[in-house]
């Protein structure tokens, strides 16, 4: 079985946080402790949505020292593929579910002298775990958390209370927007910056830091992409000798799995590289949607990341 090892859990709590965000807590079905994790880790939650098997990654937001259960926060996306709607509408306390062991693609760089966290909206979740870890180990950190309003800034009050003046809130409707260039220009040598939020925010921070001379090694970010929808297309799986159809709202990886073929994966969001697959023949155009392959590799067309990418054309044969 591909992916990280699975854990049978039961839903312990479902707590609405604000109009868009709900928090879920999972505990082991047999009351065991869950594996320990490090700040920035995520779990992949499996959903059986009327016959469609969904597997979505969510950042663990609890204190890494607490292994009695895992907490995640899910923002409802009314126009998404349906995973977040399923979590909001179907998941209730007492329900049995399956989640994966934690995987961390967004860990603290422990060489840092100081950690600078920049969160936009629901991007706060990995930082809640990272701050608990940094706080426990006595490391310097500072959080800048931007949201449209106080009511949409989940956990703002609790975090300010817990960490005092290490937490800075930036709210559009209160006119306290982040002066990013000033912030990044004043950081002591040895600071690492971590960004989690919407794509334009990531680009803004990366570009501003780079222009100031920050090395790329000190800039960390995590962006889970949701697999884009598109036209239905057909794919041949050479190793398993199958021909499959990928539905408009299905990812290629999901279609491969639905056909009973065990394909490797970890993040399911175009970031980790685990699902990289060789293209044996291609008559058409691969729509590369990941940020794992380099531009040169994408142009070459001999590799594809099935968790994110799609195809348009006559024939695509994969080594799977």
């Amino acid at each position, binding site marked *: 079985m591909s992916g990280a090892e699975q854990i049978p859990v039961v839903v312990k709590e479902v707590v609405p946080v604000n109009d868009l965000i709900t928090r879920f807590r999972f505990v082991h079905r047999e009351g065991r402790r869950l594996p320990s994790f490090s700040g920035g880790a995520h779990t992949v939650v499996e959903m059986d949505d009327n016959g469609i098997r969904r597997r979505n990654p969510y950042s663990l937001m609890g204190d890494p020292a607490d292994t009695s259960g895992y907490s995640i926060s899910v923002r409802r996306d009314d126009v998404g593929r349906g995973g977040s709607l399923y979590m909001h509408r179907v998941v209730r306390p007492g329900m049995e579910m399956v989640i994966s062991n934690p995987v961390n693609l967004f860990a603290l760089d422990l*060489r840092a002298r100081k950690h600078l966290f920049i969160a936009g909206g629901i991007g706060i979740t990995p930082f809640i775990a990272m701050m608990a870890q940094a706080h426990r180990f006595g490391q310097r950190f500072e959080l800048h958390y931007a949201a449209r309003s106080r009511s949409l800034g989940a956990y703002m009050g609790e975090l300010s209370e817990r960490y005092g003046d290490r937490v800075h809130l930036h709210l559009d409707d209160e006119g306290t927007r982040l002066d990013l260039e000033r912030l990044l*220009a004043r950081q*002591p*040598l040895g600071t690492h910056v971590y960004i989690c939020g919407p794509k334009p925010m990531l680009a803004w921070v990366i570009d501003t830091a780079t222009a100031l001379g*920050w*090395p*790329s090694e*000190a800039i960390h970010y995590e962006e889970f992409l949701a697999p884009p929808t598109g036209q239905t297309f057909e794919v041949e799986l050479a190793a398993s000798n199958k021909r499959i159809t990928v539905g408009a709202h299905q990812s290629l990886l999901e279609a491969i799995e639905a056909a009973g073929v065990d394909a490797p994966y970890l993040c399911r969001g175009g970031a980790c590289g685990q699902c990289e697959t060789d293209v044996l023949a291609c008559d058409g155009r691969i729509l590369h949607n990941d940020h794992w392959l380099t531009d040169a590799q994408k142009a070459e067309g001999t590799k594809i990341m099935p968790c994110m990418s799609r195809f348009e054309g006559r024939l695509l044969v994969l080594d799977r």
Partner: protein
Amino acid sequence: MTKTIFEPSILSRPVYGELEPRRGQGHLMVADGEGAEAILDCLARAPEAAAMLARTHIIYCPGPNGTDLSDRLAALGAAQFHRAPSFAAALPRLRRVLGDARMGTQVYLAGTEGLIGQALREVTDAGLPHTAVQTEHRGSTVRRVQCVHCKGITEDVRTDPFQCSHCGLWLFVRDHYSRRIAAFQGVNIDAEDPGQVPTPVVRFQ
């Protein structure tokens, strides 16, 4: 003298590049001996050399073979130029400068492996990833070597084997290098046949 080309070796053996002017809030340049020429060449390539110099701090000491190009570096007109008689003498200043520096400061190290390695250790201790630091080797190839037996460090090693300046063992100079200690590793060459020491050959000049 131009940059030194070393034979490819094992993975831990440091490799050096060529200093390029980079965009940054400040520029810290540390060099010894012929490393001064790497700084001069780098600044000569800078598109806006005057603006870069106005934010540049140069710390320099003479090389192990006596090369002292202080006058040429002083004539550049950098915001700060400091000549120290040795790297050890420059260390308190380097630590202070790193302690006050902000992210966006570019670090450039040039000269001998001893200077580059020891300065790099200070920079990484200050929290900058080692891959973010530019280095260029110029001048003497003498080595800083740690005796793996007594742990003493001998500076400016020229021959292989050489006699440890602390415990007196005859040591074979490996390419195996420690970034943490900023030194190559020296291993006793006559451990199995005491007294059978090959004639020392000058390998590092």
